[in-house]
């Protein structure tokens, strides 16, 4: 999309029947959503004991991101404000349970029942005031506060966010930390304008020692077709970049025997004490000297 949808209309109006169907039937969107969901699930760092978890998908839309959760065997609740998107999800027979709700009004879930939460490209909608009653800071506060309450101890929430500017990103992060969350921002592909993805990784309760570092471009083994023009053609080695460029020493020409004989003659005419000429004149000395 060339324009940001947040600037065009509120989400429940922007994603009407036409837009919801168009969004879901786009194979590029489906692929992107699947990749982002897999990454978010990876960052969620759920314990691998084989027991399915009960997860929350905030801004689930037509269930594209929830399908990744189902493929991993988890059960999930999907929450979205667009009824059209949810109707498309029902048509697609997604396995999760769907709720029509506004995350800016708080989640309305009981305390400590959710094992993890993901959100793909949804939280930045809260930064826009679409109604006169909307106050972005209060809506973010209501959202993060209710999310903190409904997550169980030690659970995580991972949001892929698409902030408009630095101020928006800082607003979202500050409200999350004020609600009691720990954690921060993980940025994949930070140097690529097109491939850059920002994940807000929040932990509820106990602080874990290690947070996974972001992916680098060079970790990718194969490039995607639609991004091949964007990717750099070859790697730049570190050693090449750091080596100082020393200037080459110019090799001056060695003067010959004629030059030496001429110089000795000049010195004799000046009255200096000059050794006699011989066959050894202007020869190199032995190395031992």
């Amino acid at each position, binding site marked *: 999309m060339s324009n940001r949808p947040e600037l065009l209309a509120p989400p429940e109006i922007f994603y009407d029947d036409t837009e919801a169907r168009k969004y879901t039937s786009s194979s590029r969107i489906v692929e992107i959503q699947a990749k982002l969901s897999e990454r978010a699930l990876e960052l969620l760092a759920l314990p691998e004991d084989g027991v399915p978890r009960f997860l929350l998908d905030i801004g689930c839309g037509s269930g594209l991101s929830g399908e990744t959760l189902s493929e991993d065997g988890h*059960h999930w609740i999907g929450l979205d404000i667009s009824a059209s998107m949810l109707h498309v999800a*029902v048509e697609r027979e997604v396995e999760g*349970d769907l709720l029509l709700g506004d995350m800016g009004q708080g989640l309305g879930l*009981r305390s400590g029942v959710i094992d993890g939460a993901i959100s793909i490209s949804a939280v930045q909608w809260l930064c826009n005031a679409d109604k006169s009653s909307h106050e972005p800071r209060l809506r973010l506060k209501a959202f993060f506060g209710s999310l903190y309450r409904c997550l169980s101890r030690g659970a995580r929430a991972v949001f892929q966010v698409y902030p408009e500017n630095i101020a928006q990103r800082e607003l979202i992060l500050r409200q999350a930390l004020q609600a009691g969350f720990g954690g921060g921002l993980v940025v994949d592909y930070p140097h690529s304008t097109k491939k850059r993805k920002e994940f807000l990784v929040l932990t509820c309760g106990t602080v874990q020692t290690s947070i996974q570092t972001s992916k680098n471009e060079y970790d990718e083994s194969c490039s995607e077709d639609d991004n091949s023009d964007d990717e750099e053609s070859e790697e730049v080695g570190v050693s090449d970049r750091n080596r100082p460029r020393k200037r080459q020493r110019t090799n001056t020409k060695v003067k010959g025997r004629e030059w030496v004989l001429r110089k000795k003659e000049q010195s004799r005419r000046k009255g200096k004490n000059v050794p006699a000429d011989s066959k050894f004149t202007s020869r190199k000395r032995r190395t031992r000297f």
Partner: protein
Amino acid sequence: MRLIVHNMLSCNIKGVVNKFPLRIEAEKVTVKEVDFNPDFLRYMFAKIDWKALVDGARSMEYTELPDNAPDTTTLESDETFLRKFHHALLELHLEEGSLVCPETGRKFSVSKGIPNMLLHEDEV
């Protein structure tokens, strides 16, 4: 909407103290089969409010669950009970009806299996 979700939903209206559980007014109920996973059932049992589950199941005309929460040995060994628990929690679907706040009586409609939890401006 399944009872596993109903067991977690609460009324989000500002100022409401008694938020949970929402009362179910069922107009249409369907049954969809879900894979049986005893580990998940045992895991979720610790989080489930048992009375809310029993009341919700009765509202959807399923009366096989015992009134009192079972103990650990029943959970570990009684597969008949686990089957009933599985059916009530994961297979019953409320397609049409409404959820009623126990304190204010506010009705949240359920349409096509999707509860509408949107609040009006004065309720936020």
